[in-house]
């Protein structure tokens, strides 16, 4: 299935793109994170397990167990620091 993946702040800077289309078979957001980590390089470094990475599915913060669906908008970003 095709999903849109967005990156923000330090993760966006490290990976070097703000948004990309991914063709994936990952059933969940956590599995998609693992797929991206497997690409190595900046993906592996910035999304590494043990790093504080927050996730959103269709613009709502969610857990790694959230189920991916065709056309979903997924986002990976560091802890938020607004206000």
């Amino acid at each position: 299935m095709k999903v849109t993946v967005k990156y923000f702040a330090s993760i966006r800077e490290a990976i070097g793109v703000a948004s990309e289309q991914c063709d994936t078979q990952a059933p969940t957001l956590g599995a998609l994170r693992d797929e991206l980590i497997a690409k190595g390089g900046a993906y592996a470094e910035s999304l590494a397990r043990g790093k504080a990475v927050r996730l959103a599915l269709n613009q709502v913060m969610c857990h790694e167990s959230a189920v991916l669906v065709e056309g979903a908008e997924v986002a990976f970003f560091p802890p938020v620091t607004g206000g």
Partner: protein
Amino acid sequence: MPACNTPRVSIQTADFDLSAEVAALRAQDPRVGAVCSFIGTVRDRTAGEPGQISSMELEHYPGMTEKSIEAMIDAARQRFDIYGARVIHRVGLLAPLDQIVLVAVSSAHRGESFQACEFLMDYLKTQAPFWKKEKTPNGARWVDARVSDDAALAKWGIALDNTSLDAQD
């Protein structure tokens, strides 16, 4: 109640005027007996970090930012007996002394406004998708999220962790 054309949430590069925002909030409902507001501003230093901050760049997640703050206001309305709420958050390039964020709430009596205002700020600090990058003479750095902000939200009985490594696993 008079027609209300003022949006509840604005994400903008432009500055805002507290008096105008409070006036708009009060005009929406003549039952209002209390308005509480909070303004966050840019400091020129961060405790424990070297260097004076010359500027700050604020990034956000367009779409999700607005939706998440709207949801926070809905949560505040369920929890507290308030009439109106207004949140403005600036993005882009800001300098020390600049205003960053406004939260203003109206209610019949002061207690609900004070509480709802603090609740909204605590919620926003840990759940709205904004990120700050500070520029100092030592270079630019992304601001770290603070555990104390998670604790502030937890005080309201909401356990949504922003800083931990495995909060969402």
